[in-house]
């Protein structure tokens, strides 16, 4: 039952009696990919869990009206990304007066004390460098470097041209390499 295609799951979802079952299948199919997308943006597991659940609640609400203007996964990925960015903005608002950099430093401090972070010194330095990137470059870098998403998929999710994404990724890798060299990792 878990090998159903997106179309088959959506068809099942249209049947009121099967709605919950179909949705559970959808959650199981995409939970991990969405989790890691969110986790790389907000870093802590607790925050990721909260945002992921919000994402799925929004997917449930929007699924009735979902039309195949984009792929189901791309649409869900976009919701997850927007939810994560909104979370960061709200966090910044809560700590009024904090600049972008300070919020990122706070995220990093949380990461170091997070019991679900198991990285060595080099991995921590890499996360520090990623956090120093502008928001868009950070998203592009995470999607390409860790998840190896296709530029066409990223283009749909981030609503940016493939050319601009390639340029963003190039700039991001150069900046990270420079930062790592500075820290002599």
């Amino acid at each position, binding site marked *: 039952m878990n090998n159903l295609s997106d179309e088959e799951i959506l068809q099942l979802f249209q049947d009121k009696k099967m709605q919950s079952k179909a949705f559970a299948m959808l959650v*199981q199919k995409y*939970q991990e990919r969405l989790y890691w997308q969110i986790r790389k943006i907000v870093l802590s*597991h607790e925050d990721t869990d909260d945002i992921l659940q919000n994402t799925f609640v929004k997917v449930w609400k929007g699924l009735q009206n979902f039309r195949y203007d984009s792929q189901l996964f791309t649409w869900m990925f976009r919701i997850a990304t927007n939810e994560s960015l909104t979370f960061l903005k709200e966090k910044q608002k809560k700590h009024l007066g904090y600049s972008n950099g300070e919020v990122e430093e706070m995220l990093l401090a949380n990461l170091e004390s997070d019991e679900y972070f198991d990285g060595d010194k080099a991995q921590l330095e890499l996360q520090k460098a990623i956090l120093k990137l502008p928001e868009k470059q950070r998203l592009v870098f995470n999607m390409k470097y860790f998840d190896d998403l296709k530029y066409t998929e990223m283009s749909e999710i981030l609503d940016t041209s493939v050319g601009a994404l390639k340029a963003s990724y190039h700039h991001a890798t150069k900046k*990270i*390499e420079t930062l790592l060299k500075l820290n002599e990792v």
Partner: protein
Amino acid sequence: MKDLSNKKKESPFKVPEDYFENLADLVQERIKTEKTSKEKKIIPMLKPYLWMAASIFGLVFIAKIILTNAVPSEFRNPKISQTEVSVKDTPNVVSNADSANSIWIKDALSDTSSDEIIEYLSDYDIDSETLLANL
């Protein structure tokens, strides 16, 4: 290690045990809670409007009672409202006015004796034909 291509891409992040096994149930639970709280929210949201509707209904009811008592019963004609009056209705209105006049005349003459009325009519030379025509 300074070159990203040489770095290992292993994720340094961990996830609590069984997290993904239970997530679907947690999400379903949250959707259920949201649905219930949304239903609970609708009644308090409608409360002010229900109060407003009840107040307007009350005011209209009170105004109707006051107006009903203020207008004398002989001038009340529920069949004719202001908006219903048109040119073709004019004769009806006139005849209603006539009937109101005749009621007033009847009341005014109730204290006058028959002899006084006959005397008045003879003084003004009103013959029986004219009288019958104006009945």
